[in-house]
């Protein structure tokens, strides 16, 4: 019987939650990397034992960790004894080296971006927000970083190279950080066309490449944002998250700073599908594993009140691809709840019925084994949850 492995990144370490296919009883292991922020962990879809993790610290910077045994043991890629030195005897240790590519061959000049007060600010690497393993090769993985850029590793995370066409798109000086920083947080690979990749940046917007990352273009037509001088500008939108279903990669769902949006043409245009949501502010958005028009969001009261409206923690589900939403409350706190759910802190498994998971800033991880109809906490008292991913394992 298949089981699930839930990968939870928190402000103080990584946790792995495992269960069988019933998803009723859970084992909790961790923390790994205690004391460090684990911004994101994600497993390879072609090798469930291969997991990448972004370990960060304001003191010590960025570390990339890798597990080849399903999260039991971890190591910084390239740190095994036979990998430690180059043939010339020089130390490597470059798995945490994220340097913007400014070379004349493949890079783009380092520009500035807009700061909170509208002045220009230097582009500086801070951390990896999101790791997206390739759909076909466990050694290929993409990293979305702050300040916004996308990197790729083709050697299992040992070394990284920026796909500089995105940062060098030309609109960079108009990008600005959201409250959490100027992070590239969403990377979606089209399963039918692997050279097509969608990314999203707070606060620049969504971008798409159709040539494997060499060139990128903004895909923000239809977005409307009142916090930028021109609400319909080509860039500057604070996109919080994008999701797609594997069977319909041209259909995208977006949770924006405000507004839930949908595109039916690979991002070329967007229309609002917030419908009857109690508030259309929020961070995550997720698509059901087997139903391409079933979408989940977690509405949050406002951009300055990051907690659920009416202090009731409710996941909203649309079975119609948006506009018509139903509140899912069974098993979730319906009073005195003031947690938030961050953009990378929801996930679905591929079992039937589809499992849905989310983690909160209060340290709870909730699971539903019936596509959201009912919920139960897997664990209640972890550190603040930054990210949740789930693997369906044999």
């Amino acid at each position, binding site marked *: 019987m298949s089981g699930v492995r839930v990968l939870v990144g928190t402000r103080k370490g990584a946790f792995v939650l495992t269960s069988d296919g019933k998803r009723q009883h859970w084992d909790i292991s961790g923390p790994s990397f205690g004391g*460090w922020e684990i911004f994101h962990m994600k497993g390879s879809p072609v090798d469930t034992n291969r997991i990448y993790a972004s370990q960060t610290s304001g*003191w*010590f*910077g960025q*570390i990339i960790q890798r597990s080849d045994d399903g999260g039991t043991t971890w190591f*910084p890629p390239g*740190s095994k004894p036979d990998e430690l*030195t180059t043939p010339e005897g020089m130390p490597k*240790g*470059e798995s945490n080296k994220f340097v913007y590519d400014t070379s004349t061959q493949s890079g783009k000049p380092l520009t500035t971006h807009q700061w909170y007060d509208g002045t220009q600010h230097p582009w500086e690497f801070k951390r990896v927000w999101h790791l997206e393993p390739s759909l076909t090769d466990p050694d290929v993985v993409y990293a979305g970083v702050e300040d916004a850029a996308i990197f790729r590793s083709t050697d299992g995370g040992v070394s990284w190279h920026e796909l500089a066409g995105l940062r060098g798109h030309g609109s960079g000086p108009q990008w600005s950080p959201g409250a959490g920083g100027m992070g590239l947080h969403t990377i979606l690979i089209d399963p039918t066309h692997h050279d097509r990749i969608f990314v999203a940046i707070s606060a620049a917007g969504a971008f798409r490449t159709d040539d494997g990352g060499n060139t990128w273009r903004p895909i923000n037509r239809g977005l409307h944002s009142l916090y930028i001088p021109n609400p319909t500008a080509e860039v500057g939108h604070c996109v919080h998250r994008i999701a797609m279903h594997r069977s319909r990669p041209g259909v995208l769902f977006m949770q924006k700073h405000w507004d839930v949006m949908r595109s039916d043409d690979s991002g070329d245009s967007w229309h609002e599908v917030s419908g009857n949501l109690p508030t259309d502010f929020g961070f995550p958005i997720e698509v059901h594993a087997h139903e391409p028009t079933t979408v989940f969001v977690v509405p949050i009261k406002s951009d300055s009140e990051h907690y659920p409206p009416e202090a009731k923690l409710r996941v909203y589900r649309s079975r119609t691809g948006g506009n018509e939403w139903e509140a899912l409350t069974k098993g979730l706190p319906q009073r005195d709840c003031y947690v938030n759910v961050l953009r990378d802190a929801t996930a679905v498994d591929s079992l039937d019925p589809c499992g849905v998971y989310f983690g909160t800033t209060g340290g709870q991880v909730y699971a539903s084994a019936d596509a959201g109809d009912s919920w139960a906490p897997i664990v209640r008292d972890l550190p603040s949850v930054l990210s949740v991913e789930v693997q369906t394992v044999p």
Partner: protein
Amino acid sequence: MIRVILPQHLRTLAHVDGEVQLDVEGQVTQRSLLDALEARYPVLRGTIRDHVTQERRPFLRFFACEQDLSHEPPDAPLPDAVATGAKPFLVVGAIAGG
């Protein structure tokens, strides 16, 4: 033999217990000491100094012999007591909550 005391998180990362002992060729400076440390433990590259600029990360300090050496030039000789191993060189994380 140079003695270096790392903060707990970097000891965990490098899989070391207690003090690190290093051989440093030539004059013992911040730069030569950290070069030797990173050569022994490549996983520490980028965690104490920036990969590109080689500048000390802003939330770290360097202490030795009851002095704050954080703002000394990287090629300035370290105190004799550090060079002889009588006193350790301390990499210290800035005090902050969380």
